[in-house]
Structure formats: structure tokens, C-alpha cells
């Protein structure tokens, strides 16, 4: 028998056995009998009227089984792709919500918009069929930039959405903020762009759908972070398939980062097609196809103003943002730059008045939705940048101005002026820890050493907090959520004492099979190896909202903890009977039920056995079996945060920024598996560094073409871009989650962009540089230096 491996231990990940030996089971590994191949035909234009599609040559091509278009969707009376959040403006007027047909009808609105689906015997035949479609487009001018899209004469995506504005959203006390600005000793101002990103999970999206006429049941295998939500949205709202007739399976999934937490049109089309052609149909995206169809992230233009008194205390913060939605509303689209952005503008500071206006805007680009961090990196970037600007303008040290405004540890729980109440935290403790870990006191020596080589060295801070563990359903409902955000877990104890957990979150790289097994191993005292975690199949798992928003451990882990408690409670009843003692006298510890104050006990396995072979069992009052289920709806968000310190070196000759040191001290609450937490922090930081220094999705204004359409032009961070990182935790416990956990999936991505850019600006501040937009590419830095106040000395 193996060992208990519990909370705080760092076993190797269970799932890596299959991943590292090539035995994973991804959607594209799956083959179904009689499977046909599907190819999506996508718009090559950013904006065009779809005048007609001639299918005849395609249908006549060898092997082509079917060609489906928006007209067929309409004829079959299918629904529009739903948006899961409905936001409203200040007057309560709901957002404009134009239909998002799964295959374009009447118009195409971005390069990559789906126009047709070709099904054939082989992928090659489907590709040939796709090339034979004759599509008549009347090309219209595209608008891709936010400032351009809201201009009076801009191309209009939808006739009934004037100025392309989906919603003019606001949060906070506008009047109080205006009053505070009038009293301010200093106002810092900053205009910035939060660059558009492409998620790039290692596994491209894919789907297989199958229809069984005998049972009238559908099965969809899809690369999804939330199969139950896909079943609900697609079955109930798009295809009109009853929930009990639809199975959605998300098997091993190779990374998500948000890209796979939406219900995509491809899923609906392929499921619908499978019934029409009475064959299983498979589609696997290429990387290039992913670039023009995976939902993009970020893409804001922001004007921010911070009012301060003469001592540098923040009096009020005002933020006006334009946020890009792309061509249609994706599943969570309008929620990201509003509800997940505005409430974070308080940061770790005591700013008493905050006002935020966000205009949510349609453009001829891929729909924009959640990408790791989702709204919180954007908020953190605005706030942590303007704090540096204010410090510099007022001549206050950047660490000192943060200290003067930070929420002290003893002030928690802390109610911000923007909806959220932080339950716990210690931002000052994280800052102090990071200052030591980053060896800030010797930075001057390192800066001088860089200067002697002709390089500029800079240090950047980001002291931040985020809101995750999505989400308290009632709170979310008030903000416009159209679904619940709880999680569920079933703990099935087998007659022999081994345990299978069915949980509604989805593991696509986060190590859930390990972390969740550790929780069960700790709580039930069963061996780590005797616990399996099942997820990603609506026929096997009762229900679930999936994995995103750093919610799996916080919300799913809480459900698992509750279900495990129920198992223990029932076990105590069984033990009370077997040990002939009062239930209140039964203790459970280290896998044993015992009678307090005696040496009489039963092992967990004995109790499990008794539950399934109930010969000596209180059948009159207790059901046989040992399987318990719990749903958990959180009472609040969780608020992980911390302090990140980036150190960069800039080569003024080429403009190259090199990240030379990186330190993060984060408060993630209780740590279940420190190795996995460290990995999440590393990965998160690298994604934030990618945004700060390398990644940029660029569209061509007018044509709507994606210019950064492949990995040849879209720069992902690589191992040789990065230093060894110093990552540590300084945790306070969450006061409302069962285990005190806060979540760690996104903190790295949220804290890091501001730290890196603050470091770049610091390195160049002696030249009069006050801001650098992301990504800080060599070309951009060189150009800034050409325009900077001091000439760059030639060698």
C-alpha cells in the first residue's frame, strides 16, 4: 500500500506519466468508425457583404459529402452563438447584442469568420472541395483600431449599433471623483495601449462529433475547458438538443489559457453536420487557422488620471477605456473589460474614490474574450504604471509612494469603492519580501556595471491584487452573468477503499489530477496512488462550470473538500454502528475511525467494505454505499496578489531589452503542492513577460488582414528570453474558502507586465522617457531613443 501524500507535499504529477510517455489522449488522437473530415471555409476579408455561395463545383468534387453554409443554418432554424454575460450602461440600457451566427449570414465581419463547412471522406478531399467553393463577396472597408472604430464616419459592423459601441459601461462614483480631483495637489495622467494578444495553446483546437440514430444521442469531443457549459450553451441555445441527448467530452487538452473556455461556432457546426451526414465528422485546426479564429485577448486604449494630495496619497482615480470586442460578442466577451477590470482599479491601495468608464467596441477583428488574467492584467497595468508616473512627477520614491497608499494588513477585510471586498492580504509583507529577494539594495552596483558596458539598467515594481475563484453566483448574477459559477464534486469510495473523484473543473495542464488527489489523500488518509480524478466528460461527471479564472482549486477544490467531509460524516455513522459507540464519540484521523478514549477502531477500508456489504449495517437509518456529492458556491472572490520586481538591461544601440532578473513574492493562500504552484507562477510570469516585451497581434487598418498571422511574425517568449526567476510565496489565508486557498493560475500574468514596463521606463528615465507601450520591442525602444531628450552616444 502506498503513502498518504497530503497538503503541502510536492509529489511528481500523476498525469505526467501519460503526457511524458506519449500516451495522452487528445481530441486529434481519437478515431471513430466511418469518420469523415471537415474543413471550415473562412472569410479572407475583414468586412464584406456575402452575396452568394455556389456549392456546385465543390459538391461535385471527389469524396465531398456535404457543403453547409449560413443559409442551411437559417433553414434549419438554429440559434445564434450565445453570450454568457449581459452588461448594461449607466442608465440600465442593455448592451447591443447582435446575433453571432455559427456560419456567416449576410455579412462577414473579420478575417476568419466562418462561411462554410465542407465534409468529405478525407481531409485532402475536404480541402479540395473548400477551394472549389465560389463565394461572391462585396468587400467593404474594415475598421480594426479602437480610436478609428468610434469615429463618426467609421465603417459600421452592424446597422443597429451606432458608432460600433456595444455598451458604454461605467463603475464608481463619478461626482466624488470629480470633487477629489478639484482638491488634488497633483494629477498624474497617462495614455496607454494594452496590446492585443493571441493565446497559442500548444494544442490547436479540434472537435469530433457523432450522432447515434438508434438512441438519438450526440457526442461531441472538443478541446474545451468546460464541457458542461458547452453542452448547455450549444444544446439548449444553439442546436436545440435536449441535455440528456448530448454528451460533451473534453479529454486531454493541451493548454487553454482561456482560448478554450468559450463555446465556439465550430463545435455547433460539426455537431449539427454529424447528424446531417450521419457520419462522425472530425476537424482539427491548423496553427494558422487558430490565429484567425481562436478568441484574442486584451486590446484596450486607455486614458487614466490619478489625483494625489501633497504627500502623495491617492485621492481619486479616473479611467476611460476603449475595449475591443472584435466582430461579435464571444461567450464572456463583454464581461472581461468591465466586471473583471473596473473592480480591480483599487489595487492594493486605499484610493477612496474611483470612476471607470469603458466603451465596449465592435471592430473587424477576431472576437476578443478572456485570456489568462482576463481584465485584471489590464487593470493592474494601468494602475501600476500611473503610480510610477505620479511618483516620478512628484519626486517620491516608487516604493515609498506605494507604502504610503497600501492597505495595511490589519485593515482587512477591506471594502474598496469599486464593489469588491478583499477578505485578507498583506501587500506590505509581499513588498518587503520581494525587496530582499530581488537584492534591491545592491541595484546601484548592478546599474553601474551595466553602464560601464554602455547599457541602461532599470528596476520595475508591481504591487498588485487580483480577484479570482470565479465566482459567487449571486454577485455575478447582479453583474450580468447568465449562469451560475459554482462547482461540483463527487467522491466515490469503492468497496475496497480506493477513491474516484468526479469533478466539474477541467485539467489541461494545471496538475489537478495531482493536487486534488493530495486533498483526498490528506483528508481521507488513503494512499495518494489510490485516488483518481475524473473530469471532462458530461456522461461521467455530474455537472461543472469548468476551469478558468483561477477557480479550479478555489471553487472545485472547495466542492471536493465538502464532499469528502460528507464521506467522513457517513463513515462515522457506519463506524458508530460497527464499534457500538455513540456517533459523537467517533473520531476520524489518519484513515481510522476510532472511539474516543479507547483503542477500538475501524480502518477506512473496513468502513468502505461495510458500506457495500451491509450485512452488519444500520439499514433502517442509513443507505448502503459510500459516495457523496457536493456543490459549492463561493461567498466572495478570492484575492491573491503580491509584489513582482523586474530588472532589465537595455542596449541603446539596438533598442533590445533583456530581462536580467525577475522576482515574485505572491500571496496565494494555502499552498497544496508547492511544485505546481511554482510552475503556475513561472508560466504566468512568462506569459506576462511575453505581453510586455514580445507579443503583439497586428491588424491592417482598412483591409482587416491579420499581419501577425503566424509564429513567424507573432513572437512568443522563449527560454532564452528569460532569466532564472526567483519565486516565493508570502501567504495569508483566505477567510472564506474551506482550505484557505486563493488560486494561483493567473497571478503571474497579472503582476508581470507592469513590473517589466516599469523597469524599462526606469532604465530610460534619465533620457526623459516616461512611458513605453507594450510590447517593448527593439524597434520601438530605438525609436523612443531617437526622440528622447538626450542623444545616444555612438560607441
Amino acid at each position, binding site marked *: 500500500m502506498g503513502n498518504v501524500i497530503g497538503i503541502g507535499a510536492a509529489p511528481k504529477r500523476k498525469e505526467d506519466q501519460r503526457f511524458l510517455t506519449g500516451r495522452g489522449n487528445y481530441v486529434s488522437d481519437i478515431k471513430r468508425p466511418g469518420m469523415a473530415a471537415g474543413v471550415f471555409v473562412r472569410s479572407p476579408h475583414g468586412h464584406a457583404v456575402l452575396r452568394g455561395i455556389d456549392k456546385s463545383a465543390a459538391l461535385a468534387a471527389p469524396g465531398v459529402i456535404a457543403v453547409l453554409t449560413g443559409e442551411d443554418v437559417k433553414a434549419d432554424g438554429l440559434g445564434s452563438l450565445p453570450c454568457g454575460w449581459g452588461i448594461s450602461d449607466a442608465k440600465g440600457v442593455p448592451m447591443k447584442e447582435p446575433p453571432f451566427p455559427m456560419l456567416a449570414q449576410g455579412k462577414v465581419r473579420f478575417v476568419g469568420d466562418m462561411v462554410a463547412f465542407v465534409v468529405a471522406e478525407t481531409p485532402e478531399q475536404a480541402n479540395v472541395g473548400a477551394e472549389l467553393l465560389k463565394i461572391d463577396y462585396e468587400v467593404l472597408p474594415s475598421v480594426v483600431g479602437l480610436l478609428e472604430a468610434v469615429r463618426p464616419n467609421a465603417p459600421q459592423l452592424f446597422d443597429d449599433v451606432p458608432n460600433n459601441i456595444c455598451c458604454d459601461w461605467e463603475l464608481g462614483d463619478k461626482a466624488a471623483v470629480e470633487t477629489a480631483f478639484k482638491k488634488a495637489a497633483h494629477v498624474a495622467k497617462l495614455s496607454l495601449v494594452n496590446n492585443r494578444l493571441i493565446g497559442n495553446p500548444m494544442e490547436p483546437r479540434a472537435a469530433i462529433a457523432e450522432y447515434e440514430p438508434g438512441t438519438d444521442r450526440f457526442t461531441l469531443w472538443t478541446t474545451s475547458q468546460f464541457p458542461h457549459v458547452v453542452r448547455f450553451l450549444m444544446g439548449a441555445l444553439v442546436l436545440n438538443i435536449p441535455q440528456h441527448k448530448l454528451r460533451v467530452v473534453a479529454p486531454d487538452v493541451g493548454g487553454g489559457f482561456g482560448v478554450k473556455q468559450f463555446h465556439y461556432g465550430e463545435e455547433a457546426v460539426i455537431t449539427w453536420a454529424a447528424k446531417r451526414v450521419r457520419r462522425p465528422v472530425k476537424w482539427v485546426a491548423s496553427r494558422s487557422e487558430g490565429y484567425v479564429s481562436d478568441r484574442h485577448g486584451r486590446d484596450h486604449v486607455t486614458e487614466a488620471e490619478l489625483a494625489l494630495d501633497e504627500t502623495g496619497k491617492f485621492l481619486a482615480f479616473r479611467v476611460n477605456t476603449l475595449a475591443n470586442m472584435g466582430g461579435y460578442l464571444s461567450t464572456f466577451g463583454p464581461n472581461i473589460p468591465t466586471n473583471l477590470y473596473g473592480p480591480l482599479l483599487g489595487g492594493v491601495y486605499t484610493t477612496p474614490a474611483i470612476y471607470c468608464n469603458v466603451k465596449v467596441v465592435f471592430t473587424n477583428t477576431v472576437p476578443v474574450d478572456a485570456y489568462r488574467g482576463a481584465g485584471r492584467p489590464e487593470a493592474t497595468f494601468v494602475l501600476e504604471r500611473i503610480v510610477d508616473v505620479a511618483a516620478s512627477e512628484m519626486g517620491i520614491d516608487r516604493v515609498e509612494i506605494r507604502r504610503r497608499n497600501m492597505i495595511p494588513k490589519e485593515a482587512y477585510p477591506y471594502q474598496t469603492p469599486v464593489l469588491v471586498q478583499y477578505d485578507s492580504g498583506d501587500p506590505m509583507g509581499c513588498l518587503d519580501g520581494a525587496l530582499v529577494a530581488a537584492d534591491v539594495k545592491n541595484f546601484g552596483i548592478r546599474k553601474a556595471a551595466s553602464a560601464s558596458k554602455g547599457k541602461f539598467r532599470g528596476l520595475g515594481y508591481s504591487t498588485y491584487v487580483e480577484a479570482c475563484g470565479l465566482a459567487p453566483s449571486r454577485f455575478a448574477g447582479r453583474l450580468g452573468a447568465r449562469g451560475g459559477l459554482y462547482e461540483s464534486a463527487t467522491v466515490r469510495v469503492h468497496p475496497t477503499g480506493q477513491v474516484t473523484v468526479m469533478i466539474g473543473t477541467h485539467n489541461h495542464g494545471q496538475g489537478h489530477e495531482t493536487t486534488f488527489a493530495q486533498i483526498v489523500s490528506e483528508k481521507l488518509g488513503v494512499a495518494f496512488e489510490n485516488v483518481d480524478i475524473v473530469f471532462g466528460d458530461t456522461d461521467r461527471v455530474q455537472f461543472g462550470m469548468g476551469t478558468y479564472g483561477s477557480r479550479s482549486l478555489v471553487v472545485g477544490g472547495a466542492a471536493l473538500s465538502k464532499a469528502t467531509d460528507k464521506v467522513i460524516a457517513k463513515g462515522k455513522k457506519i463506524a458508530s454502528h460497527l464499534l457500538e459507540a455513540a456517533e459523537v464519540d467517533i473520531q476520524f484521523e489518519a484513515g481510522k475511525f476510532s472511539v474516543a478514549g479507547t483503542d477500538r477502531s475501524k480502518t477506512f477500508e473496513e468502513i468502505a467494505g461495510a458500506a457495500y456489504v451491509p450485512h452488519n449495517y444500520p439499514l433502517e437509518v442509513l443507505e448502503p454505499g459510500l459516495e457523496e456529492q457536493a456543490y459549492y458556491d463561493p461567498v466572495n472572490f478570492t484575492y491573491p496578489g503580491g509584489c513582482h520586481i523586474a530588472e532589465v538591461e537595455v542596449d541603446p*544601440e*539596438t533598442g533590445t531589452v533583456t530581462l536580467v532578473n525577475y522576482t515574485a513574492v505572491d500571496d496565494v493562500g494555502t499552498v497544496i503542492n508547492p511544485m505546481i504552484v511554482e510552475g503556475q507562477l513561472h508560466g504566468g510570469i512568462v506569459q506576462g513577460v511575453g505581453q510586455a516585451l514580445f507579443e*503583439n497581434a497586428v491588424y491592417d487598418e482598412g483591409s482587416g488582414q491579420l499581419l501577425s498571422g503566424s*509564429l513567424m511574425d507573432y513572437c512568443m517568449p522563449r527560454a532564452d528570453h528569460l532569466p532564472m526567476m526567483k519565486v516565493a510565496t508570502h501567504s495569508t489565508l483566505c477567510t472564506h474558502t474551506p482550505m484557505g486557498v486563493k488560486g494561483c493560475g493567473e497571478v503571474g500574468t497579472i503582476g508581470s507586465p507592469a513590473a517589466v514596463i516599469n523597469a524599462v521606463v526606469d532604465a530610460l528615465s534619465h533620457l526623459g522617457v516616461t512611458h513605453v507601450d507594450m510590447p517593448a520591442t527593439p*524597434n520601438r525602444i*530605438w525609436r523612443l531613443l531617437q526622440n528622447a531628450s538626450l542623444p545616444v552616444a555612438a*560607441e
Partner: protein
Amino acid sequence: MKPFSYHQPDQIPDAARLLTSIEDSKLVAGGMTLIPTLKQRLANPPALVDLSKLGSLKGITDGGATITIGAMTPHAVVAASKLVQAKTPGLAALASMIGDPAVRSRGTIGGSVANNDPAADYPAGVLGLGATIVTSVREIAADKFFLGLFETALVPGEIITAIRFPVPLKAGYAKFKAPASRYALVGVFVAKFADGVRVAVTGAGSGVFRVPPMEAALSSNFDPSAVAAIKIDTDGLTSDIHAEADYRAHLVTVMAKRAVDAALS
């Protein structure tokens, strides 16, 4: 990928015959450009003629005052060659900077030179060293070989068999990598010979080119300072989402200095 016929001749004349007899057929060397193009269905050749069975096209030979590198020699072999490292370390260094380990293991010098990608590294080395391109039918001087964007002096059916490099007194290569692709945003190869210096630039324009003012300056003083003040004209230089022409022009000067530095170190 669209269907095509596939041939693996073991004699150069057979390869040349296939190439001329099947219209629009393509040679495959390392396939580093061709295979992705086929996968994206951007090319539809009826036949591929794979050169990998032509053993005589592989390997590096010492000709005393020259080094001859077979067309099918992968970059990794050139980078690791003791002979190239000893006689022309700048060329070995160039080969070590191409792509990534997978590309260096598959990609070949002949394929790179024949493709003449405007941002490829080898054209800078070949032009900078004044090499000779040896083909199945003739020899072509580097100065007459590279004709612009993906264009060369090769005629239909002509196959590069080797590149013959004169051994310089000193040579160096400096490359500013495009952040995503790691092709040369700007790459500069400098080579010093008894009769003068050659400077070749890749990545900056529509094809590899020489910089006579830098060559003249370095011929009288082979030192980074000699080129530090020489700016090249932005006319004809590339502007794209990664770098505008003026930045590329600036980088030519910076990389020229660093290439001379590398040659001297």
C-alpha cells in the same frame, strides 16, 4: 498538402532530367521552406525531386586556399566543422545562428542559397566571402548569382552541387534576429582578403547586397570605428511590422561594427 509524385534519384544527371522533364517540379534539399509552403497549400508542384540520395553533394573539403561545401551539407555540420572553424570561423558562426537546432539539422547550404530568401543568413556569407556557386552545368560567381527577392541566376534544370569559399584573412558575421522568426532582421558579413574587404548585408532589403563605402573604409582600416559613421540609404530597405526602413538602416551600421569586432576577436 496536395498530391505530388516523389523521386529520389541517386545521380545528378537523373535529378536534372526529372527537373526538366516534369514541368513545375521542385527540388527538395532540406525542405525548410518548401515543406511548410506545401503544407499551407500555397504551392502545388506535380513532382518533388529529393536530393538526399546524392551522396556526392554532402561534405566539406579542404582545398587549401578554398573550402568547398557540398550543397546538401546541413547547417549543423558546417557549424561544427573543425575545418571551417579553423579557416573561416565567421562562416561556422553564421551557420550556428541559423534557425533552431531542428532547422540546422535538416536545412542545407544549397537549399538556402538556391531559395535566396531576403532574410536568410547564407547569402550574406556567400556574397561576403565572394564564393563560387558550383552547379550541375557551370560555376557562378556570388556577385552574379543573387538577383533579388527569391531570384537567382539558376536556370531551369540547373542544380547547385557545392559552394566554394575562398579562405579570408579574417571574417565575421553579426546578426540581429527578427524576434519571432529568428531570420535576420539585419545580418552583416564582413571578410578581409589580401586585396580588400567585402561587406554583405542580408535581411535589410529585398535581397543580399554589398556596401561599397563600408568596404572602402574597412579596406584602409579594418576596425569597427571605420564603419561607425557610415549610414546606408533607406531607399530599397524593407519596412514591416517588426522594423521600419530607418531602423534597419541603423542596424546595418551597428551589425557591421559588430561583425568587424567578431572578425577581430
